[in-house]
């Protein structure tokens, strides 16, 4: 038996048929082909599957797709705008915060959730916000630095929200 739902993903409405036991991660990757969201541990440990669900960072591997009717989801594919990469993405590249890249989409979404709520976080606040995301390559220092860099960038006047993203509240 499948369940029909309507979910807004990266600003676009999608009608999906999902099995009752499928997770939001399954739906994003298998139904919508949005493979930027990574499948890591599948049990909430690694954060590679992090997306924004109604503005909040969540592990999509621990959310049943069937329970997301009407929800707004942002994945890594929705972070860049028409004008180009998001300042967070630019900062990750500039700082060398990406090695194998597997953790990067989740890191960016956790960081995005933080910056929307707290545009000027401290080092400790960045580390706290990323504490549910594991990186096996970088040693975190450059990731934290990238988020701090981007926090300054987002204060530059004229920096717009990427297409399709609404403020979380």
């Amino acid at each position, binding site marked *: *038996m499948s*369940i029909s739902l309507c979910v807004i993903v990266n600003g676009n409405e999608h009608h999906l048929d999902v*099995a*009752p*036991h499928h*997770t939001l991660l399954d739906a994003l990757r298998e139904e919508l082909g949005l493979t930027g969201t990574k499948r890591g541990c*599948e*049990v*909430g*440990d690694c*954060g590679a599957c*992090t997306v924004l*669900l109604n503005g*909040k*960072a*969540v*592990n999509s*591997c*621990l*959310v*049943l797709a*069937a*329970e997301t009717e009407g929800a707004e989801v942002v994945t890594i594919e929705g972070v860049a705008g028409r004008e180009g990469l998001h300042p967070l993405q630019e900062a990750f590249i500039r700082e060398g915060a990406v090695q194998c890249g597997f953790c990067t989409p989740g890191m960016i979404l*956790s960081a995005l*959730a933080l910056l929307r709520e707290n545009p000027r976080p401290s080092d400790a606040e960045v580390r*706290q*916000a990323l*504490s*549910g995301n594991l990186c096996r390559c970088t040693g975190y220092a450059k990731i934290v630095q990238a988020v701090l860099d981007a926090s300054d960038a987002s204060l530059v006047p004229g920096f717009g929200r990427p297409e399709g993203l609404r403020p979380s509240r």
Partner: protein
Amino acid sequence: MKSFVNVNPKSLDEAVAVLDRARAQGKKAALAGGGSDLLGMLKDHLVQPDLVVNLKSISGLEGVHREGERVRIGALTTLDEIARHPLLVERYAALAQAAGLAASPQIRNVGTLGGNVNQRPWCHYFRQGFPCFKNGGKMCYAVAGENQFHALFGGGPAFIVHPSDTAPALVALEAEFKVMGPSGAKIIPAEKYFILPREDVLRENVLGENEILAEVILPAAPSGLRSTYLKIRDRQAWDHAIVSIGAALEWEGGRCRKARLVLGGVAPIPWRVPNAERLLEGKSLGEALARQVAEAALAGAQPLAKNGYKVPLAKATVRRAVLSLLPAA
């Protein structure tokens, strides 16, 4: 994961009726709050329900509400909301701190208070599907196995520790749980909610198969009340407590009028230590008394082969917690 039928009840009564009907038909039903614990259990085939009842479809089960001097917290309120709620941060610090120290930011965004207190044990033998007592088997593998994270108190036949961070805080704050069942609502003190394995090895609390935790009620916070939750873990995020304490002290004229000290991570239930509480009552607090309180709190601990390190760790945690609650001069 085995598939199941998804049920979206619109009210608590409807949800209870679904549970009751499932039971009558010999079907298994599981409740889902945020699902952060349940999904892991489903994926590992530790539970294989026929129905998953989505509590998020019921309106009115979330939020922090003031009612006179008391505070009601809906079972579906997320840990993140509890951790940040100004009233809780100010008057019931132990609960706000416990919620903020649980799991990871992502899990606190979906994880609910009801799910937190009702989560199943995180003993690795249980979670990896060993045929242990908690999985319906006939032994506790921790007894002769890797028992670094197991119980110092109240163990047997299973030696799990209760994994919830909010539970010790709620017991310390003398919270009450409102439980809905087929015959309506009943109120259970938090302290009476949790049960030892020797009472029923398959459960961690008194909740029946057709009952739902609807709400947590915090009593009035007297002006001299100060509380805190301290948590020791291997890593600064997503780790359950190795040891923790929910502590609530009521001060009057520089003396402790009433003390509630509840340890986490050391027993299959939030573990109250009345002998240590009594040492504090009627006294003013200093370093020497704090040490005595810590000794008393751990008196009678029965470490297994590999968890003896928890004893000094817990003593230091108790001492630090009570000293942090000294009344404002």
